[in-house]
């Protein structure tokens, strides 16, 4: 068993090719995607030009036609995150195409997986996911969206916010409580297909500080009727069995993506740093020697900080790759990386001066984009709570 701080030469080459492609083909659309709050219309065509195979579903060992590396598939996934997002962030969301289908793969029966997961992974469709509600974010116990059994159907009422890709998705997987007395313990996941009556797009895409091209939808569920078979994980003829809490905790597999979120932040900060270094080097003649050495020291310090980020990210990912429990390490990576990545971009803008925040450069976009990475998939605070619980458990023996 080996710990990879650096990828194998093969995987490094893979990442490099992805980076170069991302700079050449993804980055040129970054400003427009930000302004339009959507990706370029031909984004699928753009993705076709990618010189290496990349995965849509980032869970372990799914896409079997992907290149193999000695580092293991999960390390390849991390390299994909780093390579793809180096050009800009907009593509990530459309490459992964949401996580509705990933939830199907986690909670669905084999038949449900065949029906809703496989076609998406093969065909490149987009799927939505709805968990958060206006009154329930980090703390899901406040969910109030309700599903009621009515003969051969479930009738769902409520609303969801922060639903990735729900407006353009083929279907949305939404959580709802089936027994108000049991509350969150009775939560079940339902596949709600596009066009289902009662599935209302309240706001197609929120007006956001950053990651504007990523679709963040508000949906309403108004007497939304779905067949029994759309409840994930059960024989369609059976009723809810109250194992919904378990269902929600099965979602914790999604938390394993946390080191990749930190990797995303780190690679964007690295892009900002590389760009800033280039610009400053071009301007170098204007610097007095002592000023230049200050600048150089700043650039070195930031590069080292991003290396630190990567160490934690890769360590956490490596553990999972080797089937070691990495819950704590994944949370640490997620708490550690994103806020430092933000700071790197901010500092780069400062070193450049006022034009560092101009829309002629992408730094200001990246600064806006990155802020959410310390929030979604669990805030830095939530990550610390997770780690602290583990500390307490160990301390209490």
């Amino acid at each position, binding site marked *: 068993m080996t710990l990879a701080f650096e990828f194998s030469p093969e995987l490094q080459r893979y990442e490099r090719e992805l980076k170069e492609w991302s700079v050449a083909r993804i980055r040129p659309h970054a400003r427009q995607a930000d302004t339009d709050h959507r990706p370029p219309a031909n984004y699928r065509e753009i993705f076709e030009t990618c010189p290496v195979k990349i995965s849509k579903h980032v869970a372990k060992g799914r896409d079997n036609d992907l290149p193999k590396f000695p580092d293991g598939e999960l390390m390849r996934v991390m390299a994909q995150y780093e390579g793809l997002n180096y050009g800009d962030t907009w593509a990530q969301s459309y490459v992964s195409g949401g996580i509705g289908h990933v939830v199907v793969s986690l909670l669905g029966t084999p038949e449900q997986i065949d029906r809703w997961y496989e076609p998406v992974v093969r065909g490149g469709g987009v799927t939505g996911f709805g968990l*958060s509600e206006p*009154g329930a*974010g*980090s*703390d899901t*116990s*406040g969910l109030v969206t309700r599903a009621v059994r009515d003969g051969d159907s479930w009738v769902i009422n409520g609303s969801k*916010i*922060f639903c990735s890709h729900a407006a353009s998705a083929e279907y949305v997987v939404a959580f709802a409580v089936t027994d108000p007395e049991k509350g969150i313990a009775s939560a079940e996941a339902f596949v709600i297909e596009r066009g289902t009556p009662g599935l209302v797009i309240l706001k197609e895409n*929120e*007006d*956001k*500080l950053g990651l504007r091209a990523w679709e963040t939808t508000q949906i309403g569920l108004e007497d939304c009727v779905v067949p029994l078979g759309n409840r994930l994980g059960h024989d369609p003829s059976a009723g809810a069995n109250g194992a919904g809490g378990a269902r929600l905790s099965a979602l914790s597999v999604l938390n394993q993506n946390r080191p990749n979120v930190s990797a995303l932040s780190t690679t964007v900060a690295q892009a900002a740093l590389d760009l800033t270094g280039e610009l*400053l080097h071009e*301007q170098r003649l*204007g*610097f*007095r020697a002592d*000023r230049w050495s*200050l*600048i150089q*020291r*700043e650039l070195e*310090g*930031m590069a080292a*900080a991003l290396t*630190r980020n990567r160490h934690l990210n890769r360590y956490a990912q490596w553990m999972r790759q080797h089937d070691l429990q990495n819950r704590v390490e994944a949370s640490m990576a997620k*708490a*550690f990386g994103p*806020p*430092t990545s*933000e*700071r790197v971009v*901010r*500092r780069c*803008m*400062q*070193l*450049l*001066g*006022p*034009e*560092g*925040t*101009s*829309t*002629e450069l992408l730094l*200001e976009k990246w*600064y*806006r984009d990155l*802020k*959410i990475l*310390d*929030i*979604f998939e669990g*805030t*830095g*605070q939530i990550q*610390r*709570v997770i780690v602290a619980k583990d500390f307490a458990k160990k301390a209490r023996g």
Partner: protein
Amino acid sequence: MFVLSSSTEDQLIAETARRLALGPVDQAAREVDRTGVIAEGLWRRLRDFGFTAPVAEHLGGTPNAVTQLRAVENLAYGDPGIVGTAVLAGGSTLIIDAAGTGEQRNRWLAGVADGARPAPAPALYERHGLPPEEYGTTITAEGDGWRVRGTKYAVALLDGVTELLVVGVDPRGGLRAAVVGLDREGVDTKRVSGTSHIALSAARLSRVHLDVLVAADDLLGGVDADARSLAFAVARTRLLAPAVALGGANRAREYATKYATERIAFGRPIFDFQGISFTLVDDQMRLDAARLGLLSVANGLDQGREKALADVGRIVNETHAAATEATRNAIQVLGGHGFLTDHPTELWYRAAALLSTLDADPYFASFAPAV
């Protein structure tokens, strides 16, 4: 003994500023950000208030640095984008008042206080956080005139303006300023139309290349100008952007606190979690330290102390560090909601970032990772 007067008049000014802030300034914030335009009515109210672009005593009155700082901070509590724009656009009046001759004050400031005409646009900032004494812009005698050569950044609101006040260094390293007509040959402004920066869209910041000959009487204070007065006036002007950042950041801290006392998660207001409340307390401590530092330097400038000149760079950087961090933490406290334009936190985050790039001298702070 250092005296920060809490005179009735000062108190009144601060309160008036706060009222303006929470009234028209706050109300206009989102719209100004979106359109990149500050409506004339709001401009008039800011001008009438008089602290963002103060003018010579006989033309309306320039307050002392401490009073102005407090007024600007309180005003920026309403919206750092609008007030930052006003401060960036208005900075030349103070400098002309302090370092110009009587004739120049009349020539360049008459009619400014009542809005009849704009003052020359101040062209101060350069890149990489260079302090004034290291500006790359030079003002050098050439024949009968003086050549102004260099590039200035973050020059605000050139529309309708006919002149620039350019600050540079002369060959002996002393500060010099000159007023340059924008239509002169050798003045090349570059501006990206519309919202061209992360924030302060209404400021329509430009980059200006200068390589132009001006007459001796366009030199601020004339050929024998007192470089010291100019240095003090420029120093005062540099304190205004951090005062704006401070006002916005303090608002963000308070807004996030209010949100946290109302938002329930895990059975209680999230403010009850020290992970939230301690972060906000630390932010406030840094902001308070920055405010005291700014006031202390402003007071030193008012007293004409050389040491205060040397202290400007550090306090500017400290204040921006505190403000960028506090606005970032305000979003963090609001979680996903803070990332939406439904809340003003993201406006404040952007404004703090832009303001921090004006004058970020890396000598005074090194990059430090967040953890």
